[in-house]
């Protein structure tokens, strides 16, 4: 579903994404790990078109989307939940999702209303349907990020640290939700620091360090890799 080849981005002299290539098939979930500042969010920026890549291509279902602006990539089916939630201050939760369904998925207004209800039920936002964006707690803002992305009916979904601040129990619910999302026509990319969450939900894990891909393999292989343990897991397990 998603094919990335030779993706590069530098800010001045600092190379933040260094020649990353990978593929994620429909029905597959790929976890992305790496220390803070490894370039994970910037990698998503490049995929989503929020930042223009210096080199490399992004293909969605075979089609080159590298030169499309963000909103056109969304129409093609590439959705993203931001690491730092971006709710609309004056829109209600329901309006957020109706808009995502209309603008992102191209639904008519009646279908969009239904879609908003479905997505709210799925992400546990139903009780907050009429709350405006600036009235939400951080946790609900995170949920809304995921809900907005889902309401655009994506073929590729980019999840950036959506579990931040969740309790252990809530993390389990989230894992269940991600597993539930796995269908043959959706590819999932999930940035997270919680190794066990990625291990449970993902088919493979990619590790980034200083912008470069260190390893991409099954969760078991990645978490037992000595370089990964040295770089990252020791620190994350204490967190």
């Amino acid at each position, binding site marked *: 579903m998603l094919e990335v080849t030779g993706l590069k981005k530098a800010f001045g002299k600092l190379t933040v994404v260094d020649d990353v290539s990978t593929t994620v098939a429909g029905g597959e979930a790929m976890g992305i790990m790496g220390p803070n500042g490894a370039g994970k969010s910037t990698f998503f920026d490049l995929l*989503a078109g*929020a930042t223009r890549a210096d080199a490399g291509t992004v293909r969605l279902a075979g089609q080159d989307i590298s030169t499309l*602006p*963000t*909103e056109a990539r*969304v*129409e093609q089916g590439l*959705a*993203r939940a*931001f690491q730092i939630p*971006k*709710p*609309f*201050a*004056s*829109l*209600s939760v329901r*309006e*957020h999702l*109706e*808009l*995502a369904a*209309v*603008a*992102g*998925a191209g639904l008519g*207004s009646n279908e*969009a209303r239904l879609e908003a209800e479905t997505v709210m039920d799925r992400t546990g936002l139903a009780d*907050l*349907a*009429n*709350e*405006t*964006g600036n*009235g939400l*707690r951080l946790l609900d803002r995170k949920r809304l990020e995921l809900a*907005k*992305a889902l*309401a*655009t009916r994506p073929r590729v979904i980019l999840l950036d640290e959506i579990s931040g601040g969740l309790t252990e129990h809530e993390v389990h619910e989230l894992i269940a939700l991600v597993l539930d999302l796995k269908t043959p026509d959706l590819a999932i990319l999930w940035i997270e620091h919680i190794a066990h969450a990625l291990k449970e939900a993902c088919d493979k894990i990619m590790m980034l360090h200083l912008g470069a891909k260190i390893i991409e393999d099954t969760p078991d292989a990645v978490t037992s890799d000595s370089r990964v343990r040295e770089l990252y897991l020791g620190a994350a397990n204490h967190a």
Partner: protein
Amino acid sequence: MTRILAIGAVLILASLPFWADRGVIFLGMEILVVVALAQAWNLPAGYGGLLSLGHHGFVGLGGYALYVLSRDLGMHVLVAIPLAGVVTAIFALFIAPILFRLREVYFAVGMWVAAEILRILVSRSDWLGGASGLPLSGARDLPRAWMGPSAYWMALTAAVGTTLLVWALMRSSFGLRLRALRDDEAAARAIGVKPHRVRLIVFVLSAGATGMAGATMFFSSLFISPLAAFDMGWIVTIVFVTLIGGLGRLSGPFLGAAFYFLLREGLADYGNWYLIALGAAAMAIMLVLPGGLASLSDRFTPSFTKTKEQP
């Protein structure tokens, strides 16, 4: 209920020329033009975050379009007024690609510069009567006694039309797009909202409505000159009225216009003092009621969009 009240109010307003004298009809026309102008400006500014300081350029352009359509094409004035709005909208469509390269303050100033350029070009054009202006050649299209009432009804059409336009747009998913863009552009794009297209639509609609209101205003004066048409006073009034009434509120332009004309007429015997009073009042309202007069109603009625507090 609100709807019935609104229809009743429009019917009463429409009957005004049958029972009021000429002075009142003229004042009513002026008020309605200002309501239409403020409503049209509020659409991009209040709902879309696209602040223009050059809408007086569209007022003047609409006015001149009426005079030219009437003189060169012999068009009936009552047909030429709405068409002047169309001409202004098309003009906006062509300048948008340049102006949209500018953001925020730069866009606001860019619009003002565009209006100045228009004024200078028009004052230098012999075809448009140069600095001294043009008489309305279609002045004989209507019997003299019907001029005032016709201008008034045109103004009423413009005021009601722009209000309905904004109301309908903001109820549709287009309104959601506009508000989302104003709140956070990156987040709006991330769910598929096309910023350029949305802004272009509101900008062009706003320009068209402003041009039609401008044409109505200059229809009643039977004469147009660059100084009067492209007067900065238009944009000052529009901004005052909208801010005092309530930015991004449908009722804002009505409340703001009521306040503005009450002050202006109330202080009519004291020369330009009303401008100072207006400035002071605007500042006081901004300090006490940042949402304008329209936000007063929020303080006394329960809000239905807010739900219970989070546990």
